[in-house]
């Protein structure tokens, strides 16, 4: 195994096999996307798939959206290398869904049309709140995109045998171009079908690997963990391998935990999926299906992660191109050789494409619907022009994502960790405002603006001045710092994840802004919001074709 990696300039398996499996996936999904594009005329079709997706399908699509490269590669890698501390990611990511299920999904489906801003601006002054919500949507989506693109580049380096910065950059460009194509042609319906297929493949793939790994250890969890301990030391079974080093890293762990559990229900691309089903009950059904699929998948990743630690080995993973993110593909190669590696990496690649497409459509919908149609054109945009603007925005966002992806790739950040930052922004800027809007009668425009901008600015500022961006210690294995920028140090905030500070701050600012507000809350609009959110009267209907 080690010889193979060394001999082949950092590639494992047969690049030709990997490329062909991936090409098959791209071809199949392209055909489906074309078929889905027939009914893509109106905004409801383009953004919300005509609200005709069934609850179960949408549950699969949500799982597809959520089980991004971060979940598959990042979590398995974190468990393989850090053991127990990696496990926390999956628990936070899963428990977070209860916030969405109990407090957000159905109420949102009942009150909004296309975007998160629809509900946030419902009983507020439209212009300022929509603008704020759209900006925050764009920032969260870009962070998330960054993680996915970095994952794509790293994966390709490992699997397709391309190395060198130019070749990696080229791969990121190809991924970006493909995703723009899916979004332009397929809209939300095409994107949904791609997610459904991908989620199915991913869960089956993870299931096969899980059974395979467990089979090697006589279906005994204790023996599997024992294998991981033999290879990585006792620490992998206990908390603290990654975060237990000092008081600062312990606080960082809590900050991460908070961001994970409160982030999901504020992720715009997750919220947007609730609009693709006909009714609130279907939205509930989709979250329930998603919770089961995601939970079962994370149990698989626990086994896959420990399996990679035991069978591939910690040092091997850290030394491979792609680093921590390479654990699952390396394990696939160890288990099933070239064929399984090709299948698993094809799935992982498909995962990235599908998630990136979902993010792009969310960001472009938010710009076209909230900024262009509602703020710039004051709701007077000519029919079809909104969708046209959304398509143009998708191209721009794709281009930005490509640029950022190349940057992130070269820094070699763990993608689960990058995604955790997107969660921190979502939990800080979006969730407090969503909850206040839905449940607090006296919430005002000023409160909404303070909590969105306050949470957003605090969160992004703290990230910029954290070790993520500059000044992290140099990793002796790779000789590089884990920061985005090498050789500079302007950090003063000690934690990698800002959630511990920025989330409570945003809740506080929403409360303070409301209390100091001169204008009275709009009681009439709140009555409408409350009655609509709980009864479903006046909710947007599915489009009839």
């Amino acid at each position, binding site marked *: 195994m080690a010889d193979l990696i060394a001999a082949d300039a950092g590639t494992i398996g047969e690049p030709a096999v990997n490329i062909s499996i991936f090409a098959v996936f791209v071809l199949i999904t392209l055909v489906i996307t074309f078929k889905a594009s027939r009914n893509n*005329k*109106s*905004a*409801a079709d383009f953004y919300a798939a005509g609200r005709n997706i069934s609850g179960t399908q949408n549950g699969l699509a949500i799982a597809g959206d959520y089980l991004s490269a971060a979940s598959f590669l990042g979590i398995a890698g974190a468990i393989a290398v850090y053991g*127990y*501390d990696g*496990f*926390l990611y999956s*628990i*936070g990511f*899963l*428990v977070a*869904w*209860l*916030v969405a*299920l*109990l*407090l957000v999904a159905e109420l949102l489906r009942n009150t909004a*049309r296309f975007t998160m801003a629809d509900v946030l601006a419902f009983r507020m002054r439209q212009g300022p709140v929509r603008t704020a919500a759209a900006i925050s949507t764009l920032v969260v989506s870009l962070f998330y995109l960054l993680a996915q693109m970095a994952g794509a580049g790293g994966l390709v380096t490992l699997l397709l045998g391309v190395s060198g910065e130019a070749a990696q950059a080229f791969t990121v460009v190809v991924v970006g171009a493909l995703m723009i194509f899916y979004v332009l042609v397929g809209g939300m319906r095409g994107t949904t079908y791609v997610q459904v297929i991908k989620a199915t493949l991913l869960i089956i793939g993870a299931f096969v690997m899980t059974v395979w790994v467990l089979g090697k250890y006589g279906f*005994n*969890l*204790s*023996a599997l*963990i*024992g294998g991981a*301990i033999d290879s990585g030391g006792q620490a992998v*079974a*206990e*908390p*603290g391998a990654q*975060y*237990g080093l000092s008081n600062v890293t312990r606080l960082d*762990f*809590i900050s991460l*935990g*908070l961001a994970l*559990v409160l982030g999901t229900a504020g992720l715009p691309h997750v919220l947007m999926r609730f609009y693709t089903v006909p009714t609130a009950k279907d939205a*509930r059904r989709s979250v*329930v299906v998603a*919770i*089961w699929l995601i*939970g079962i998948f*994370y*149990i698989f990743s626990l086994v896959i992660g420990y399996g990679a630690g035991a069978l591939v080995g910690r040092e091997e993973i850290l030394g491979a191109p792609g680093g921590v993110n390479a654990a699952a593909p390396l394990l696939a190669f160890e288990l099933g050789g070239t064929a399984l590696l090709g299948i698993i990496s094809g799935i992982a690649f498909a995962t990235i494409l599908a998630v990136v497409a979902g993010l792009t459509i969310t960001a472009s919908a938010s710009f076209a619907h909230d900024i262009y149609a509602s703020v710039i054109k004051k709701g007077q945009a000519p*029919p*079809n022009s909104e969708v046209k603007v959304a398509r143009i925005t998708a191209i721009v966002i794709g281009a930005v994502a490509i640029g950022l992806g190349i940057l992130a790739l070269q820094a070699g950040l763990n993608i689960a960790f990058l995604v955790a930052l997107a969660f921190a922004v979502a939990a800080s800027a979006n969730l407090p405002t969503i909850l206040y809007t839905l449940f607090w009668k006296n919430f005002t425009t000023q409160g909404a603006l303070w909590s969105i901008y306050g949470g957003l600015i605090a969160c992004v500022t703290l990230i910029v001045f954290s070790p993520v961006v500059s000044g992290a210690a140099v990793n002796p294995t790779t000789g590089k710092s884990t920061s985005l920028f090498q050789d500079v140090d302007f950090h003063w905030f000690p934690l990698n994840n800002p959630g511990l500070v920025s989330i409570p701050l945003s809740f506080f600012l929403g409360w303070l802004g409301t209390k100091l507000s001169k204008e009275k809350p709009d009681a*009439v609009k709140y*009555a*409408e919001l*409350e*009655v*609509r959110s*709980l*009864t*479903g*009267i*006046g909710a*947007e*209907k599915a*489009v009839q074709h």
Partner: protein
Amino acid sequence: MTPPTDRKLLTPEEYRQAQASPEFTELRRRFRSFAVPMTVAFLAWYLLYVLLSTYAHDFMSTQVFGNVNIGILLGLGQFVTTFLITQLYVRHAGRSTDPIADEMRQRLEAHEFAGPREETPRG
């Protein structure tokens, strides 16, 4: 593009009447009496788990059987409670809130909250 033609919009007054009605008060009470305490409970349980993992290293590393320690069991316990709460919510919604919500929606569509017990002029 979404034509609001065949949808009869409700007036602000109807929403106010509906919001003030006893059945809506009951609907809101039933919804919140499940969602709020349950949210507090699962967040507290999750944060307890995170804090234990961070500050109670030795306790979490206590081996229960073989190499499986308390930390891993509590972690798997988070999965179990998440699945459990999901199913409890589905049952609660189906039995307790859906019937009121469905009934109120039908009456709102028929404009039965339009005024203090008067027939609405619009059919």
